[in-house]
């Protein structure tokens, strides 16, 4: 054993930098994003133009909304792996029901499974205390099964993408993607909810310290149930946006976005342990991932290499955050 005296020591530059970063977690993220864009521009001069930016935004938006679901659930120490299935279901149901139904009815039918899955997730996690990972994997398995069965029944009736979703998914207004008309309000709403509403407070509180929240009179199951329903609704809406972008309804439409949505939230500084993080970071996380994908395509990086890099980035960023946050 060594004896040590605690002496006030001059704070090193490294430590000051670290503390600075810890206090403003968005700054390192923005720097990373700018670096990636700069590399892109160097590799292919002229690529970073108005059209590229609009395109990047278009692809980042669905990812960012799903990552919003992850951000909110992760704040409570959970995770929602059913968002991909929910988004796919809403998209698929919308595209097939619109053929014979009134748009409002089709929309309501499309959001129905979202509400149901969210409710089941919320009750499972909030009341029965099932691990969120298991719960949401389970419901997504069930949802996929239903979708596949449903698909068999609508084979003959065909599918159509409503014009409005078309407009929303791919249209541009003054060079800006129309998807922003959906995204900006959603983002503002999420940020406002997290920072300025009682519900947002409770998400953080429950994730930071469930006991403390309980002692303050918070009923855990209420918060969690509402959370998973909201997460599912957001996922459903993302599905509608995404089908407007991709225009090819299928049974696995949004599935490829699920793990990246978790990664975007993690990279954006939301802790998987709960209680820490925010949506602004997540949005930048989603942009970073989208730009990174483009970069890897341009580099002719084979799919295998991309995934390897992707994995390492997620691990590295999480570990780095842990270090920054731990010893301040």
């Amino acid at each position, binding site marked *: 054993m060594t004896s040590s005296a605690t002496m006030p020591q001059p704070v090193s530059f490294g430590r000051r930098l670290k503390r600075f970063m810890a206090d403003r977690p968005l700054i390192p993220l923005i720097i990373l994003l700018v670096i990636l864009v700069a590399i892109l521009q160097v590799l292919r001069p002229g690529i970073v133009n108005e059209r590229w930016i609009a395109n990047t935004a278009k692809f980042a938006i669905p990812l960012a909304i799903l990552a919003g679901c992850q951000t909110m659930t992760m704040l409570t120490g959970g*995770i929602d792996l059913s968002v991909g299935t929910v988004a796919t279901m809403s998209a698929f149901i919308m595209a097939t029901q619109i053929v014979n139904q009134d748009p409002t009815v089709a929309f309501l039918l499309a959001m129905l499974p979202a509400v149901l899955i969210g409710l*089941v997730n919320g009750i*499972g996690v909030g009341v*029965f*205390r*099932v*691990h969120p*990972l*298991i*719960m949401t*994997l*389970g*419901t*997504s*398995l*069930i*949802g*996929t*099964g*239903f979708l*596949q*069965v449903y698909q*068999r029944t609508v084979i003959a009736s065909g599918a159509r993408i409503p014009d409005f979703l078309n407009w929303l998914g791919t249209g541009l207004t003054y060079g800006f993607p129309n998807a922003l008309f959906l995204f900006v309000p959603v983002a503002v709403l999420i940020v406002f909810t997290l920072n300025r509403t009682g519900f947002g407070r409770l998400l953080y509180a429950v994730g930071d310290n469930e006991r403390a929240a309980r002692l303050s009179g918070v009923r855990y199951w209420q918060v969690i149930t509402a959370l998973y329903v909201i997460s599912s609704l957001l996922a459903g809406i993302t599905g509608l946006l995404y089908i407007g972008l991709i225009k090819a309804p299928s049974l696995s439409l949004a599935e490829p976005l699920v*793990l990246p949505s*978790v*990664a975007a939230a*993690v990279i954006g500084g939301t802790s*998987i*342990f709960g209680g820490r993080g925010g949506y602004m970071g997540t949005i930048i996380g989603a942009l970073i991932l989208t730009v990174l994908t483009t970069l890897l395509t341009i580099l002719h990086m*084979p*799919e*295998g*290499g*991309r*995934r*390897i*890099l*992707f*994995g*390492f980035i*997620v*691990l590295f960023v*999480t*570990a780095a955050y*842990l270090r920054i946050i731990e010893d301040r």
Partner: protein
Amino acid sequence: MTRFLRRQGWVAGLLALLIFLFVITKLIQPGYGSGDFGSLARAVLPYAFAVAAQTVVVIAGGIDLSVAAMMALTSVTAASMMNGASEEYAFFVVPFVLAMGLVLGALNGLLIVVTRVPDIVVTLATLFVLQGAALLVLDAPGGAAAEWLKASVVGIMPIAGLPDWADAWVPKALVLLVVCLFAIWIPLRSSRLGLSIYAIGSDELAAFRSGVPVARTRIVAYALSGLFAALGGLSLTISTGIGAPIPGPYLLASVAAVVLGGVALGGGKGGLLGPIIAVFVLRLVRTDLTLLAIDPNVTAIIEGAIMVAVVMFGAFITIRGRPAGATP
């Protein structure tokens, strides 16, 4: 006897369920015989190894999201090494691939211990890395397997002294499974190392105070998981004769069977037998639905529903069984 029932009640119940399912199967398809049982055993093989891989880490209080990716990587590695190679070369390939699983698994554990990033994030990251590596090894399904390896899961195991009619019910695949799993598991379970794995999952602090090297044990648990996953990957290559770089449904299936098999996700409880029986149950459900000519997609719903219902039921019992006055 009562203690046996209390402790093994879940497993006994599962076994009863399995027997019940066999009876149902025989009723649906009176011609269901030993050959069909052999098919079942072959179908079970990769799932069983995946579940074993998951079980070990869950008992140790963790989770491994990378099992399916690990299986894909080991499968393509084995298949591409054996492609065009001699039959004898496979004698080298098998231990090589198993060692690879062991080392990569240990690396998972090491990353968890060293970075202190939660296991779920670390294994999510390695999921991407291993998937990427698999795609680098083979960008499309392909490769080959040695004939003697393929033969090792086909047909029955002649056992001296056993009458032919009984021997017909001993498929090689089952023997392989029992030998590989239980030859590792049974001695391990009662060894100091095995007990340590249970101990860190049951109560990490008490384990540490009992002198268990917690970090080392965690690494070993993940290494074992890697080894089982490699066996799973090999079994895929052996049964299909090729390697496929895109992971199959084994992650979800492994978590489902672990839960269904009575292994508590919190760690410390359960064994390997329950999850293995659970795998048989889930595979046999699929068989039965095929025999009934029911849409196989319904199986996905049923598997998901079984998983969610079982977890909720387990949670329900725990909540009910909590002694009065205990704080939740």
